[in-house]
């Protein structure tokens, strides 16, 4: 297939010209209609993959000028990979959408908040930490705590923040520090590198702590490189390949330097893992230095559940489980873990050794509607998609919903609070740490 190869040879950010052969793969059969959460709510062809691809095709052919209406149609995508997983022709929809978003940004510019966000994230650790500190100082003035939960609600009208939006509380201190941290395990049998991801570092610091504690108790030492940065998923989703590429280089450098070099990388964040495993290679394909490093790092990157089940082994973990969680537990499969990395069984295998009763919800792999910043920029559709997920969770009868994505945890927690539900949404590793008596 000469077409496909020529596309594969170039990295992302090559413009619409490189998409011709990929677009040709779409036969417009409409199968994507059956799985797209956004189309399911909005019901128009421009909100489903085949319609979006037709638009990108028309843009490339000069039939359609770059317009805000076109941009809005392309923004209406969670990049949940449902269509991609279902597509018989193997059309790389997310790649085409992000490339088209980049093209439109070149033509139309980017809205200021997004531009600022991508710049901030791409600026590296110093600025992000400063923003975090500013945010954590301002937060008590802007938001009030919701009693009995870790959530916050706004005090005043704020841009992009709905009255009923559940806002996660920033931790008092980020998990990572400026310098590399090393957590040695007694009788260490392996040493891994911990790629935290932003939400785990700034919000779910307990999850980060649990990763270290669980690994240490199982005899695995943990290195946390100090200069790792945002994984770049938001910038990549927005088609800012420059920012995403800079972040990829920063992280690849951090994960392949000094003590970290050549070690397995564990990630407790679905999107972070997906970026390291699949997207960095594409972003760095044309880079002679980082291209190879990206491909090599991808081979050594594991979701935390994947690492525990396949490299440590359930037989070695079970003896450390001190008490079983009471009540049924269900599992939500994050898009970037389930479809992005093909990981479904590993979190369940872990849950089954820590709980007495596992209750599978209906369609555990459907998107929760978070989709990076989609939940903020398209609040209404996101809420409708979330509503379905919440219904499945509640119907399962579980008291805890476990997942492997901090973004999903925030989104689902918001949905549960909205319904006044006491069901707890948490990370699988947190539950394991709890059952092992570590937290």
């Amino acid at each position, binding site marked *: 297939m000469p077409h496909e190869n020529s596309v594969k040879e170039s990295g992302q950010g090559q413009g619409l010209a490189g998409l011709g052969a990929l677009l040709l793969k779409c036969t417009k059969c409409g199968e994507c209609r059956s799985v797209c959460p956004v189309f399911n709510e909005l019901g128009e062809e*421009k909100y489903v993959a*085949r319609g979006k691809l037709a638009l990108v095709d028309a843009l490339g052919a000069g039939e359609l000028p770059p317009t805000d209406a076109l941009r809005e149609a392309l923004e209406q995508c969670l990049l949940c990979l449902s269509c991609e997983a279902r597509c018989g022709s193997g059309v790389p929809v997310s790649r085409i959408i992000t490339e088209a978003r980049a093209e439109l940004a070149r033509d139309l510019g980017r809205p200021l908040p997004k531009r600022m966000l991508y710049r901030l994230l791409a600026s590296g650790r110093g600025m992000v930490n400063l923003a975090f500190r500013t945010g954590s100082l301002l937060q008590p003035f802007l938001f009030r705590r919701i009693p009995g939960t870790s959530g916050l609600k706004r005090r005043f009208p704020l841009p992009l923040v709905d009255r009923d939006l559940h806002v996660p509380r920033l931790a008092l201190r980020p998990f990572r520090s400026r310098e590399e941290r090393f957590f040695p395990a007694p009788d260490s049998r392996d040493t891994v590198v911990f790629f935290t991801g932003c939400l785990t570092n700034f919000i779910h610091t307990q999850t980060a702590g649990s990763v270290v504690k669980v690994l240490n108790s199982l005899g695995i030492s943990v290195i946390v490189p100090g200069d790792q940065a945002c994984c770049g998923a938001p910038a990549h989703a927005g088609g800012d390949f420059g920012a995403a590429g800079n972040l990829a280089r920063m992280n690849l450098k951090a994960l392949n330097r000094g003590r970290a070099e050549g070690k397995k990388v564990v990630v407790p964040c679905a999107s972070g893992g997906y970026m390291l495993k699949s997207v960095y290679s594409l972003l760095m394909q044309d880079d002679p230095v980082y291209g190879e490093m990206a491909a090599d790092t991808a081979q050594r990157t594991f979701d935390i559940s994947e690492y525990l089940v396949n490299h440590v082994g359930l037989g070695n973990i079970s003896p450390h489980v001190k008490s079983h969680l009471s009540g049924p537990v269900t599992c939500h499969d994050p898009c970037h873990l389930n479809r992005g990395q093909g990981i479904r069984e590993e979190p369940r295998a872990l849950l089954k050794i820590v709980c007495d009763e596992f209750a599978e919800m209906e369609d555990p792999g459907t998107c929760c509607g978070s989709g990076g910043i989609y939940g903020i920029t398209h609040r209404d559709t996101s809420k409708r998609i979330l509503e379905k997920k919440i219904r499945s969770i509640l119907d399962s009868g579980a008291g805890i919903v476990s997942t492997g994505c901090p973004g999903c945890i925030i989104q689902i927690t918001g949905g549960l609070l909205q319904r006044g539900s006491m069901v707890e949404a948490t990370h699988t590793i947190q539950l394991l740490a709890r059952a092992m008596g570590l937290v």
Partner: protein
Amino acid sequence: MNPEAIRLLSDLLGPSNLKTALEDRITYAFDASGTRAIPEAVLFPRTREDVPEIVKIAARFGIPITARGAGSGLTGGAVAPSSGMVLDMSCLDRIIRIDPGNLLAEVEPGVVTAELQAAVEREGLFYPPDPASGSFSTIGGNIAENAGGMRAVKYGVTRNYVMGLEVVLASGEVIHTGSKCLKDVVGYDLTTLFVGSEGTLGIITRAILRLLPLPEARRTLLALFPSMSKAAETVPRLFKSRVVPSTLEFMDRVCIEVVSKYLESGFPENAEAVLLIEVDGRRSAVNEEMGEVHRVCKEQGAMEIQTAASESERDVLWRSRRSIHNALRRLRPRWEEEDVSVPIASIPAMIETMEQIRRSHGLLLACFGHVGDGNLHISYVPKDETATDSPRLGRARHDILRAAVDLEGRIAAEHGIGSIKRKEIGWNLDQPTLHLMETVKHLLDPDGIFNPGKIFPGEEAGSHAS
């Protein structure tokens, strides 16, 4: 489009349900056939009552109107002419009622087929038509195209399950055909006239569908044969031993090769044909029938027989059949596809002719389909993948359709005529028959506003995009 018509439609539907922006129109310019034409407007009726009003405005201004379900058709039936408008019926998606006492369901046309199936199955009922596109195609589209599917050998096609229709005519009048009664000889059978009419006679706004009790059990078997003729002869042998399978699918050697590669799970190298056979009904009868199927396959020289003991094993057996399209598309992104049917006893002869066509035109040609009901799907591309050889493909297409006709078969089995087989429709229909059909069309739609450019030879509705 006439600004007055736009204003009236916008007043009727509300501005958000009438789209004229290029961004919207481009996304309704195609179906799965590869034909394409950008319509002037896209309309989203929100209630059944909207439809006659829309049609009246379309008629008054002479604007062509093409009703569309999921746009999953393969013959351009849902592509409106560039002077026309598209009516997206998938918004009307209510299951009005499921009536177990009368074994029927009343639905709006936009209901997705698989969703109806799931809903009736929850009540222990069964809607048998199952086009391959069932997870996203709509009932309205299935009726308009008289969709077939895997279970036609035992249960028939969509037509056999439509008991009655509500249809909006070109005058804006609403008629009701058929009834809730299984036996009904009141007047002409207009229901059948509208089923398969490809949106050229009226717009379906409601349907009464016949349901069956959900079979208690089903069993699945996959058999590999050393020759296509042995596999094909298995079919009459099964009927002779009084077994009517619910599914009888076949794949030829090319399919076997590409699917094995795609799934990375090989069939034996010397297998020339695969039969996937399913029986359903009462558990005891099903077990007995499966035994019979097994025996016949063995007698016919099957090299290997796999049976499924559970639903997950059934999925494994079905995986190869379901993967054909995907596997072919991974090999080449675009294939020409023909959908023909022949009388079931002519299947071996048809398959033999396909082999000759494959050789004489230098094609990569895969043949698979519903051997039990005589419906073959033929996918083909030039063997040399760099060739852009449309005259050769055109000749091959001619020969494939001709071969079916020579065997008293039909040029379209379950995909319809649409815009892409209009030139050949006369190969199947003699002049007086075709003329009567055109007269019926003219009588019901004198100004030709309903889905022009379909079925009958005439002007092109859209251009072939691929």
